[in-house]
């Protein structure tokens, strides 16, 4: 352990510069992404229109495309923050909500609603939230006799996730053809057609959840050092752990409701943030910005990379996940592991 410095508070100069650069990258990607589509616009046009000086046609195009890009930003931020919390709580760089089952739970809730009730955003959101929370309750109940120790949460999460994946396939087999097609697209993780009806609820959810997580940032940092140390410095370990877990699940559910279960963002973003800031600890703020930039970039790539078809953001994100795993591989090799 190094001696405590301002770096450990998470507000040193390197972090601030990193966050500023990431924010700038995100803005550039937003402008590029808004300019992409059947009616292309130059970045200058987009900026001018956003400032209120474009033609009427340009204004309509921008307001049509902007919600989708903003949904991408918020989905990335929510998943990344949830991932940072999960990885710290499980003390495992691979312990992100998409790997250990919570995202699958949200997905199950979401498709159940699509198939049984209807595919309006609010209904799907309720389903995703209900599914995510129910999964959490089940996993916590399975862990019950030993408390929420990290290793059990991970393995039981993988097991529950497998059961839910089976249930998802069963629901798809049983559904009508149109419903199944709609649910399949949603399961991959897609941003096509996301308008203000998706953006507003997501923004409201994040306005509540993100500050709630950040307030507990210090406690989270203490938890990473171990339960004994955290207790020693006055953190109510059990209560904080459950609170943060529920907040993180709610973040995942909100993101899943908006875009479907986009994979790997929650896994990668906190890791990238950690490498950029070169800080130990959860790196909550930096993770949020990395996540936002990643999802906007993935969505932009999905629209640009193939001229013949649009790739859903979830597919691009999964491929990014592959690249990240190869990177882990190389790092592992270099360390001689």
């Amino acid at each position, binding site marked *: 352990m190094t001696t405590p410095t301002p770096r450990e508070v998470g507000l040193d100069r390197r972090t601030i510069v990193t966050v500023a650069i990431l924010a700038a990258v995100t803005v550039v990607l937003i402008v590029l992404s808004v300019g992409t589509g059947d009616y292309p616009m130059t970045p200058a046009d987009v900026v001018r229109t956003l400032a209120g000086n474009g033609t009427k046609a340009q204004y309509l195009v921008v307001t049509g495309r902007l919600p989708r890009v903003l949904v991408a930003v918020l989905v990335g931020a929510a998943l990344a923050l949830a991932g940072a919390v999960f990885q710290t709580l499980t003390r495992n760089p691979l312990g992100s909500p998409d790997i250990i089952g919570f995202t699958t739970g949200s997905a199950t809730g979401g498709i159940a609603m699509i198939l049984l009730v209807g595919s309006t955003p609010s209904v799907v959101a309720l389903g995703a939230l209900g599914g995510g929370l129910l999964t959490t309750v089940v996993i916590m109940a399975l862990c019950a006799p030993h408390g929420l120790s990290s*290793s059990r949460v*991970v*393995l039981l999460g*993988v*097991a*529950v996730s497998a059961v839910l994946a*089976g249930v998802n*396939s069963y629901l798809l087999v049983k559904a009508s053809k149109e419903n199944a097609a709609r649910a399949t697209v949603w399961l991959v993780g897609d941003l096509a057609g996301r308008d203000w009806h998706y953006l507003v609820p997501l923004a409201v959810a994040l306005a509540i959840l993100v500050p709630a997580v950040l307030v507990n940032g210090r406690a989270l940092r203490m938890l990473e050092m171990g339960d004994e140390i955290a207790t020693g410095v006055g953190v109510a370990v059990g209560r904080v752990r459950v609170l943060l877990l529920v907040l993180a699940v709610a973040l995942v559910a909100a993101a899943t409701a908006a875009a479907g279960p986009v994979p790997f963002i929650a896994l990668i973003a906190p890791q990238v943030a950690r490498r950029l800031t070169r800080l130990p600890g959860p790196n909550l703020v930096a993770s949020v910005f990395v996540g936002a930039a990643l999802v906007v970039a993935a969505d932009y790539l999905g629209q640009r990379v193939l001229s013949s078809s649009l790739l859903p953001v979830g597919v691009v994100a999964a*491929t990014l996940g592959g690249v990240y795993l190869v990177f882990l*591989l190389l790092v592992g090799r270099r360390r001689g592991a």
Partner: protein
Amino acid sequence: MVGTTRRTSLRTVALIGIVIALVVAILLSIGFGSNRLSLASVLHGLFAYDGTADDVVVRDDRLPRTLVGVVVGMALGLAGALMQAVTRNPIAEPGLLGINHGAAFAIVAGSALLSVHDPDQLIWLAFGGALLGTWLVSVIGGAISPIRLVLAGVAVQAVFVGLNQAFQVINTHNLDQMRFWLVGSLVNRDLAGFAGLVPFFVAGMVIAAVLAGPLNVIALGEDTARGLGANPAVTRLAGMVAVGLLSAAATAACGPIAFVGLMTPHLVRLMVGQDERWVLALSALSAPVLLLICDVLGRVLGSPGEIQVGVMMDIVGGIAFVLVVRRLKAVRR
């Protein structure tokens, strides 16, 4: 010596019980379906074939499917038992660790990019994909911590699944039939294509049989094993090659099916102890029982259609995995 005789008789009882269960499962698998057959007509179709409608169903539809189920079940059970012995990790399993999905990815990519559709060539791709998956998971996960290994497996699997989805989105036309295969199913497996896979199954099973003794020695510990003249590195490598052969052939036949190889070795160890010769043999015999029963369940619950066996294994296997995890000493604190 009383203990030894008791153990031996216990093993004999387990062996007889599993063989009986296998016969029952085979008969159930032939009898159940959208058109339910009585035991008498199943036996009639099998042993006194004279061309009635029921006989044709038994011979042309149910029997091939059941045979494929038995062989694939054996392969997956054996692969799981081998992997647990080689990695000395109680939750190692080719389905859970992304190896089956590696094979599936290689097949999907091969048919999409290289236009390979010949089963005899696809199996080699599948073998390569299975080895790639094994290698990725073992390097990322390391062999020490069960948790890290499982997470690495899930992550690798998620990448393969995502890439498969990408191929489907890009080339819906070509890969529409892949969608059903990717769930893991015993439907419409013709025996002609299956015949090309037989050498892979046989090679994997022979290697497993040869390795049973050395694996017992390795279980005593690295140094002891070397002292007794075994070569742990070679045994491990051969074991993983066998796992690759068996998982690749099983996946090429039926698509990626998880959890078969996780559950049965655990149940078998409860019955016969740690002797790998018995664990491997009985796992190979009892895994088809599990697979066939799940397949029958899927046909009963899903009638008039069916729930694919891959889906049923996810549900049943996931629940069993919860029980395994709750038993693990390494995870208990």
